[in-house]
């Protein structure tokens, strides 16, 4: 039956004062909070709030591969499982994972793998589980960003962190970090990710309609945004070590951890 409330798109995506509907300037990011070590059972974990997105990631590995036949004799494998909770979106999502979730899982995996030294872990797997519990546009970028943090939290050797952010075009204007409503009502969304060890793009997707010059501008905007998010990732990792240190100090001189 038709739902009571339609999920309707606004007619305009910019306010009269030129700001975006949520009050942001065109190149401004939504508020982002990150925290590592949030799931005790995991080898590494992290949590991100990025606008209304709320996402958990946890890492297990290196560990035995199930099912066994997926194991590779000469290297480890990375498996990413991106999932959305039923209640994370306007219309309840069906519980079984859909094609979109599998596709995004593969994209995130391809995006993170370049920073790992999988050749050092033959026959094993690293598994990253990502659960989007509240979604509001840009979940693949937020998920990539939080997954990289969880890998770092797990102490997995990495060439560098990975950071991800989307840029795009709404109401004819190029903007950074599209919200859910901007993504749906806008013209184009271009998620990117960067592997900092070589400053190259490890995620690049696009759907919509843009010109060559717009693409070039978008890539420049993305770089600025990625820089900002990267420093937040580093802060989140630092806070963990500060906390560990403080906890140790608080326990007095006799700690031997």
């Amino acid at each position: 039956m038709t739902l009571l409330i339609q999920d309707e798109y606004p007619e305009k995506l910019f306010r009269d004062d030129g700001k975006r509907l949520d009050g942001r300037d065109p190149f401004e990011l939504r508020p982002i909070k990150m925290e590592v070590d949030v799931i005790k059972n995991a080898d590494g974990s992290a949590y991100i709030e990025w606008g209304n997105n709320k996402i958990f990631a946890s890492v297990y590995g290196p560990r035995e591969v199930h099912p066994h036949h997926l194991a590779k004799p000469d290297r480890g494998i990375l498996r990413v499982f991106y999932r959305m909770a039923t209640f994370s979106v306007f219309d309840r999502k069906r519980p079984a994972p859909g094609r979109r979730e599998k596709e995004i899982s593969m994209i995130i995996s391809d995006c993170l793998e370049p920073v790992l030294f999988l050749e050092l872990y033959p026959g094993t797997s690293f598994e990253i589980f990502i659960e989007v519990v509240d979604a509001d546009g840009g979940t693949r970028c937020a998920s990539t960003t939080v997954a990289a943090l969880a890998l770092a939290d797990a102490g997995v050797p990495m060439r560098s962190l990975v950071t991800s952010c989307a840029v795009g075009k709404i109401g004819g204007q190029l903007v950074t970090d599209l919200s859910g409503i901007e993504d749906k009502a806008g013209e184009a969304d271009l998620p990117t990710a960067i592997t900092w060890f070589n400053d190259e793009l490890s995620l690049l997707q696009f759907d919509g309609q843009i010109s060559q010059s717009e693409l070039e501008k978008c890539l420049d905007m993305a770089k600025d945004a990625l820089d900002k998010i990267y420093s937040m990732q580093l802060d989140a990792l630092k806070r963990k070590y500060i906390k560990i240190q403080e906890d140790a100090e608080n326990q007095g001189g006799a700690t031997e951890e």
Partner: protein
Amino acid sequence: MMDIKRVISTIEKGYIEENLKKEKRVDGRGLWDYREFDIKTNTIAAAEGSADVLLGDTRILTGIKYDIGEPFPDTPDEGVCTIMAELLPLASPLFERGPPDQQAIELARVVDRGIRHADCVQTKKLCIEPQKAVYILFVDMYVINHSGNMIDCGGVGSLAALISSHIPEGRWTENGPEWTGGYITGKDIIKELPLPITYGKIGDCIFLDPSLPEQLVCEGFLTISVSSSDITSIQKSGVATFTPEEVKMLSKKAFEIADDLRNKLDLWQYATQIE
């Protein structure tokens, strides 16, 4: 320190059992003590209600969604409330990917059963127009960290999420259901607050709220859901057996424990105020 990341070793098992025989628990609790509950509600913007509940380190995130559908022919003026659980592989190396396994089904079913017969969800309040349109409420539990006794954690989480809920109010029109502009809230929908009370059994020792190390050692469990006046559900699981006398005693105790918990948690504080 106990390593909850792997199946418990024989030594740990012995240690837990040894202590229980002396009515002691490895985390220092008494036999009939709960770990701490910590509750946050309405944390999920996209949900029509939600609760993030910690019981010790066990963490379950419960969200409410709704749909509108036709009522069942034999209950033409009653909505429906369904409960689902997912044991995210994120939450524990013990959880596997794939469709819900027995443990997830059991979690959902035991929580559901405790609620279903307890005059808890007022299904007649979930009716928009008899025979035409009723609400279908989805109470979906996601286990974020598993440190034992998911059932009692999920039971509290489901109630808290339901109480926190705020569902667009519909009225029936020629064109189908239409939003009135108002909301139905948890205060309208929920009445009784039945709680599942879960005991573990190791050898002859029985105790409340098994932690994960204890749970891995347990031979079986008994969950008794009680409202203020009635037993609303019993579920024995695992291969332990219980004497009839034990069952009678644990049922009596469940009423006391649930009363205490209801007072302490004061779940009605999480009701959403729509001005």
